[in-house]
């Protein structure tokens, strides 16, 4: 919203300025001890220069800018709203929908809503103080200071932006390299995979051959016994797996309950919750007691000991002829190799398909982790990875989610698209949704999380600066940003 004077001829311009200054001087006489009604305001008060000609007197009447009505010229700025578009009251608060223009000589001109005219508050947007003229309050002209501050801040921002842009370029370069590297890697891996597959096939054939040629080897232990032991051993291993799984499930449930206990709303007075917490505490006490005297490990150890005591020949694991076992080992090794390559390929492919931004600038940050200490918690976030919240008291850690997508805008063509990331499907909140993080990125010379908040239960917002979002000036998004910064001043 740059308002250049070049549109108006200089003489006219200085005339307008003079009229306005004169007007302000006159106004200051009206500032009595109480505020005063201001009679006969200039028809140009609150009008921007480019529209001044629309407010020139061309007879006794004047037509609203939307053409909705014709009113006496005197009715402009008479502190009564006549026009539906509010155009007759540019300088007062009489119309709900009009804008007041602050010239802010020495700084950047701006508009404020007419509801802010003579409301007893010096609007920061009107550094010239022209928005308050009825004497309720005196607003000093601070345009010089404001402008100095603004220019300074702008310069600082500009400096940071310039740095950011430079770093971003490096990121882009780095990203390009990563992309090329990954593509090459994929190429290589695919070739390797083909080789690996052939190897597996070959070794499988070899193994089969040996197996077919060697009938059952002589048994070192009675067959039935051995078979039974083998089965039991397998069963024990399966059961151990089950126990581990159950332990994990108990741990999960305990962590859910712990979460509920710590995070439930104490003022909710939900008896079901309170009962559950009490039951959890009791259970935990019992459980911890049990865990201390847990004889599970003993059983296991006993089993291991006893198993070791069994004479080797009784054991189900029968020594195979080395030829056969070698062949099997070779086959399994090849199979594993193939699997490894396949996994590697998936990894590289997923990286190649990851959306690293407009110009692949975010690839350089892939899996870089940043953290933020809020006092109570330390938050950490790995780009395109996961986000966690760690208690600074008991160091318990909560999963806040994994990278899901970019959400800065509807369409990826919109430059804002790559300014906001969503991490989701974190640990579920008690009585609430799964935790998630919205990461808001702003241009900066380095990568840093500035703040973390939880505006709604379990929905975290992180503000972060990063050079990756420092775009060039001629970009829409940047202009938008500058304007925003300007508003804040």
């Amino acid at each position, binding site marked *: 919203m740059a308002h250049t004077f070049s549109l108006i001829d200089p003489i006219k311009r200085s005339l307008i300025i003079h009229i306005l200054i004169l007007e302000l001087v006159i106004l200051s006489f009206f500032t009595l001890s109480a505020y005063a009604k201001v009679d006969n305001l200039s028809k140009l008060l609150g009008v921007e220069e480019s529209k001044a000609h629309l407010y020139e007197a061309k007879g006794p009447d004047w037509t609203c800018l939307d053409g909705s009505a014709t009113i006496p010229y005197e009715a402009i700025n008479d502190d009564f709203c006549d026009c539906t578009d509010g155009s007759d009251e540019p300088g007062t608060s*009489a119309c709900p929908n009009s804008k007041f223009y602050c010239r802010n000589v020495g700084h950047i001109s701006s508009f404020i809503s007419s509801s802010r005219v003579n409301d007893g508050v010096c609007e920061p947007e009107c550094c010239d103080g022209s928005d308050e003229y009825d004497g309720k309050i005196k607003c000093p002209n601070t345009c010089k200071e404001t402008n100095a501050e603004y220019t300074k801040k702008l310069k600082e921002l500009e400096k940071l932006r310039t740095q950011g842009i430079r770093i971003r370029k490096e990121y882009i370069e780095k990203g390009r390299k990563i992309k090329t590297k990954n593509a090459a890697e994929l190429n290589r891996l695919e070739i390797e995979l083909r080789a690996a597959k052939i190897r597996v096939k070959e070794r499988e054939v070899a193994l089969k051959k040996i197996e077919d040629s060697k009938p059952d080897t002589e048994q070192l232990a009675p067959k039935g016994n051995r078979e039974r032991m083998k089965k039991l051993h397998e069963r024990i291993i399966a059961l151990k797996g089950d126990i581990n799984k159950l332990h994990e499930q108990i741990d999960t449930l305990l962590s859910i309950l712990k979460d509920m206990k710590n995070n439930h*709303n104490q003022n909710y007075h*939900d008896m079901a919750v309170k009962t559950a917490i009490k039951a959890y505490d009791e259970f935990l006490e019992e459980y911890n007691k049990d865990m201390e005297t847990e004889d599970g490990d003993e059983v296991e150890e006993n089993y291991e000991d006893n198993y070791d005591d069994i004479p080797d020949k009784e054991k189900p694991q029968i020594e195979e002829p080395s030829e056969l076992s070698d062949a099997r080992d070779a086959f399994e090794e090849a199979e594993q190799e193939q699997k490894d390559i396949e996994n590697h390929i998936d990894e590289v492919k997923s990286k190649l398909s990851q959306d690293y931004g407009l110009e692949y600038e975010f690839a350089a940050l892939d899996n870089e982790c940043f953290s933020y200490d809020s006092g109570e918690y330390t938050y950490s976030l790995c780009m395109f990875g996961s986000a966690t919240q760690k208690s600074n008291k008991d160091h318990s850690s909560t999963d806040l989610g994994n990278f899901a997508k970019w959400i800065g805008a509807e369409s990826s063509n919109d430059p804002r698209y790559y300014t906001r990331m969503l991490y989701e499907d974190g640990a579920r909140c008690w009585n609430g949704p799964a935790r998630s993080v919205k990461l808001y990125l702003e241009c900066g010379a380095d990568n840093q999380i500035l703040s973390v908040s939880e505006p709604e239960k379990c929905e975290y917002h992180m503000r972060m600066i990063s050079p990756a979002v420092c775009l060039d000036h001629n970009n829409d998004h940047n202009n938008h940003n500058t304007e925003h910064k300007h508003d804040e001043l």
Partner: protein
Amino acid sequence: MKFLFGNLKFSKASVQTKFYLFFLLYFIVSALVVTAVKRQDFKTCEQSSFCKRNRAYADRLTANHSLISPYSVIQDSIIIKDGIISGDLINSENNLIFIFELHLLEIGAARVRINEKNPLKPRYDKAKDWALVQDPSYTLEYTLISSKPDVTSLSFGKERKQAVSIYHSPFRVEFLVNDVPIITLNDRGFLNIEHLRKQVAPGLVDQSNGENDKIIDDENDLDKGLWKETFNGKEDSKPNGPESIGLDISFPGFSHVYGIPEHASSLSLKETRGGDDSYSDPYRLYNLDVFEYEVDNPMALYGSIPFMMAHRKGASAAVLWLNAAETWIDITKNKEDKHRLSSLLGFGKLTPTSTSAHWISESGVIDVFAFLGPTTSDIFYQYGLLTGFTALPQSFAIAYHQCRWNYLNQEDVAEVDENFDKYDIPYDVIWLDIEHTDGKKYFTWDSVKFPTPEKMQNNIGIKGRKMVTIVDPHIKIDDNYYIYKEAKDLDIFVKEPDDRPSVFNGPEITMPKDLIHHGGWEHRNLHNIYGVAYHSATSKGLINRSNPPRRPFVLSRAFFAGSQRYGAIWTGDNFAKWDHLAIATPMLLTIGISGLPFSGADVGGFFGNPDTELLVRWYQAGAFQPFFRAHAHIDTKRREPWLFGDPYTGYIRDIIRERYALLPLWYTLFHEASTTGMPIIRPMFTVYPEDEETYAMDDQFFVGNSLLVKPIVNEGQTSTEVYFPGNEIYYDYFTHKKVHGSGKVQIEAPINKIPVFLRGGSIVPKRQRIRRSSAAMRTDPFTLLIALNKYGNATGSLYLDDGETYDYEKGHFIHLQFKFSKRKLFSKPLSLLNNDENLYAQSISSVRVERIIVLGLDLKPKHIYADCIDGSKIKRELQFGLPTTNSANVVIIKGTDLLITEEWVIDFSY
């Protein structure tokens, strides 16, 4: 700390400087169901032994017509002196003596007190110290009509239009107005005073304990709870045994009774002992924190006002049952009055329905006030004189409040504040809920989240906005916490029966009844006044803190009769559901007619997430509540007005702006309430007392006498039937168009519109400038909206003062009477001081009337002349404002230089 105000959220009890320990982790309750309200967490009458006993007592009398009340006046014991009629009663079942007093009061009411003559120890009688402004004075305007052996009758009041008859055997009191009985006590014989007694060892029979044994002989389980009872595993030790009181109070000839808040129920109270659409349990008064309460239910909620009003054509009456213990009220309606009523009253073809209430309280004395009207406004005034009128709030308090549990930190507060400006939505107050404290240690501050509170407050204070903080009335146990330590050192905590400080662990999520307060009183006696005690202390503390004193703003969730003297209340933790939006109207109307007009329901619903339509509708309804605040639970999604996008954000903005435009009307109504007791939002029947159609109507109401409002409370609804009473002209408030037809009319109500109508005959003062806070409107010009009635007349008023201090008590205010009659509009100041002595009038001496809108003129005026009465300005012609219409229906007068503080006349000539 300029903008800090206290706030009271919980109801949990204690007296004055007593604090109540609260340690949340130690709840032990066995219920386990996952739905909304946990009914089983709260007692039914059946589970409350004294309620059960009194109900059984009543049932016995009702079932057996040969049984009569055993209480009678002892022969020749009646003494009449200085407005007090006193005497002794005897209970023939146990020969115990009781003393009764009947006070004839100056305020147009009477008081009946009954106590044991020689109680074992004093019964609790201090509820009056909290509820009443002062002990009311007796009138000497009375005449003894008859003094016979069976009845004593007096007439009283200046014109002797009121009368009381005391029937001796059985004891019965009847109040009459113009010779028609309107209130009777013990008409049905339910008077029951359980005398204090010593516990006798099991197996022995206490000779003095006769009344229950004889009347209730075979119900042994009724005796179970006499000396001890348990609820959900919590034991009430009941060291004093049974001490309940019960009495029936009937309104002969009245089919509708109202009041006894707080219940999520209809305005006209329902029957509780059978009948159509009746409740099975009595209405209960016991201040409780009910999690996700149910609508259409007589269960107790956060506050209690034991005030009941009855209304019919030509008469209104009311009672206050002044008791702070747990109270249950059974309501029955009789089609025919078995006690001689139909024959006595000249109702013609009408079959009168009488309504009777059976009041049951756990302890204390019988202390009943009877307000004799005859009109509803008389009753509001009489009740206000007794318990106090609502305190005139600061002007910001009636503007829009933005609240959430919780705005997280200073940045959050700044962002919310900025967004209101960005979207040009006015608001006056942002709230910080309990998370602003350091670990819920109330009166402390979380300096991590809010490191520079003064700066934070100044940033919003510059724009005329305020900040309110919330505390809960319990004290965390922590030796490093100064308040805990002070209270411990002073030994002022509420005590367990064994003298230890009490820790929160009671039944029904509140304090156990056998805890001991200051003075040795058991909690059971005073449970319902803990909230008002806390409210009063907070309010007085705030007044003392500022010099010159500024009016405090203290919002409480708990309340009792008299709470209106200390501030506002809200209806507690409601739900983001349509039925909760709907129930807010009858709840607020009920609370309003019970002397507490400054009330509101959380906009949006506290629990849960309202969808856009519900939220818009809730804002529309909330804008016409006396207290207008959006609030949300910590687990809910953010719902600040700008989060919904256009057009919805615009609809919310529009209605909040409309609230601000109408602030002059609201403030004037608050002033009226603070001097006359008139409710601010009024049930239809109080404005049209002769129209029976309105008696049970509680989905539409009047703001003052001028605006008829019907909130839309159903999903997807875009039109509704509005009842237009009084054969009067009504105008659409927003479009200024006349409503066609009267009585029930179908009205369009698209999502952006709440049906609001101007009643013909009213003048509404407005301020139409859009500002960001009410403080910024202080010197804005006025608009007068004049809605003429069918005779071409209208009246209205405007009250204004500095909205902050008590200077108005010294006359620094303006009070204008507007009158439109015979095509002339008069503005007449009623102020006490001349403008040159009146500091407030001076401060707005150049504020103009910028616009006058007249609806319903029969002929459009050709010229409009204004004339200042003081003659300082000559008669001059005013201009028409745009847009002008060709019809006479809407005439807009433009921007005059008429000053609001001056007296003037405007002549609308042909």
